[in-house]
């Protein structure tokens, strides 16, 4: 962890932003809502809620179609959203940004389009052992269809990738490496720049699942030199049902469409159709225009708060949580990587994660309990699941104090308070 103690400046910079999120004013079971399930989805600031509502109130029309003013206006908003995503990821060009329903659809797009057209029997796809199911199952589907083989990069007891094993697994058979930027179950920040450099030296492409990264740190796809980068808007304070795939332009240009329909074609006849350019080629049908407008507002919001400020604030929260939770008898952290972001995963001896989830819920504290859609990783650690607290820019030390109080209450309820 690179976390410094929460400085007065960090606290001052971030203070007040909780007021931007209307839902944080509500109560749950009569208690103040303490929302620590941001890895699942973040809450939405008023700016995002209002942007989506204003779009429907003032700007709604289909894009790329009408000659009428409103259609052009809607198209402009949609294009502005693409430019905003470009700026978030520092892509070289907005045409390298494909809108999708989220990370899952972005990965499925690459697997279906690039994978089915490029993979041959015996080709290898390397996936890290800490992938979310969304970066496993699409590759299994394409492996079944193409005869490609999936190999798994092992994970250490601390929850880091075994880089030596990775180096040994890379070969001329490796066609693609799929890795999460930040693990959703452990919070591990993977050394993606190094992973990419090593893969490229073998001629393999790299897809980075950025779902847990983009809300917590600055991402620069050009500096990383990555081939594909996927993320979801709803984990970035934006609406559900919208996300994006970054793809290097020459790769996207060479890839076939994966869904057919309106908006993705150039000309259509019953004999033959020709396709639109990148990225429209991958956006069949009327897209989630309001979602793009909401995502644009969400990215503008985090850019205004400052991703570096958010990263410092959350690093301080992880450090505070690690210290505070570490005082609880019988609590064991799962994942102690040197580089972690925004997530603390743990088990408490004698209390199943689901019982913890219920007890904390009655205190107004929302956490995630379970396998976090990373069943192979849970199997690796010999656990049915963990409890996970995941942070966002609006969380405070007070929220962590509420979590600790809830966990102590759970121990008391389970009759464990004398074991200390």
């Amino acid at each position, binding site marked *: 962890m690179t976390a410094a103690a929460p400085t007065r400046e960090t606290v001052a910079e971030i203070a007040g932003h909780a007021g931007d999120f209307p839902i944080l004013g509500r109560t749950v079971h009569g208690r103040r809502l303490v929302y620590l399930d941001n890895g699942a989805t973040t809450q939405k600031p008023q700016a995002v809620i209002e942007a989506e509502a204003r779009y429907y109130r003032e700007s709604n029309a289909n894009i790329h179609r009408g000659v009428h003013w409103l259609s052009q206006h809607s198209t402009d908003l949609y294009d502005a959203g693409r430019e905003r995503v470009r700026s978030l990821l520092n892509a070289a060009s907005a045409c390298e940004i494909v809108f999708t329903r989220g990370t899952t659809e972005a990965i499925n797009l690459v697997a279906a389009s690039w994978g089915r057209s490029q993979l041959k029997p015996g080709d290898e796809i390397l996936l890290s052992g800490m992938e979310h199911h969304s970066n496993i199952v699409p590759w299994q589907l394409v492996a079944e269809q193409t005869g490609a083989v999936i190999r798994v990069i092992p994970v250490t007891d601390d929850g880091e990738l075994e880089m030596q094993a990775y180096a040994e697994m890379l070969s001329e058979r490796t066609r693609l490496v799929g890795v999460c930027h930040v693990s959703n179950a452990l919070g591990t920040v993977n050394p993606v720049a190094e992973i990419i450099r090593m893969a490229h030296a073998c001629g393999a492409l790299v897809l980075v699942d950025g779902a847990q990264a983009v809300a917590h740190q600055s991402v620069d796809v050009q500096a990383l030199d990555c081939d594909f980068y996927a993320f979801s808007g709803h984990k970035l304070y934006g609406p559900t049902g919208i996300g994006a795939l970054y793809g290097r332009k020459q790769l996207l240009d060479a890839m076939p469409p994966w869904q057919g329909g309106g908006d993705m074609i150039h000309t259509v006849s019953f004999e033959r159709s020709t396709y639109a350019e990148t990225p429209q080629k991958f956006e069949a049908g009327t897209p989630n225009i309001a979602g793009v407008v909401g995502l644009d507002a969400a990215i503008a919001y985090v850019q205004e708060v400052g991703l570096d400020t958010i990263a410092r604030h959350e690093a301080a929260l992880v450090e505070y949580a690690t210290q505070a939770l570490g005082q609880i008898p019988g609590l064991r952290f799962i994942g102690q990587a040197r580089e972690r972001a925004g997530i603390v995963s743990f088990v408490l001896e004698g209390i*199943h994660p*689901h019982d913890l989830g219920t*007890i904390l819920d*009655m205190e107004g504290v929302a956490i995630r309990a379970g396998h976090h859609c990373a069943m192979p990783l849970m199997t690796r650690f010999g656990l*049915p699941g963990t409890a996970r607290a995941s942070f966002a820019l609006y969380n405070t030390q007070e929220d962590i104090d509420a979590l600790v109080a809830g966990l102590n*209450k759970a121990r008391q309820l389970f009759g464990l308070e004398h074991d200390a």
Partner: protein
Amino acid sequence: MSGQFGDLRELYQEVIFDHNRRPRNFRALEGATHQADGHNPLCGDQLTVYVRVTDGVVEEVSFIGHGCAISTASASLMTEAVKGMPVDEVEQLFNDMHAMLTESHPDRDLGKLEVLSGVREFPARVKCATLAWHTLHNAITQAREIAKTE
């Protein structure tokens, strides 16, 4: 103490803690005539229920597996309740338990199993309490699929 924990005491009664800490009949059963697996993949709760039926009566019943306090206690209490019971009565109890955990209380008193009735107020946890019962039902009816309640 109950005041301090409020509604949680309705769910987590002392009997449940007792059976969670020291589950009864927690072992594989040699010579089982029936057995079935239960698995809720979302929560990870997993168990196997073993039954030895002789002359239409549940002579022995046991379980192994892992899960939360509610699912473990429910399985443990279940084995105590059905041991020595004719198979057709087990099926009636399965229906009554299902009603108590999901809809409304059945007409008859279910004895010690009543401690599980608080689960009904926690919709997210009903599946934990019902898993063992569905697994037992599958074992006895010799259904071949893995029981699942989520």
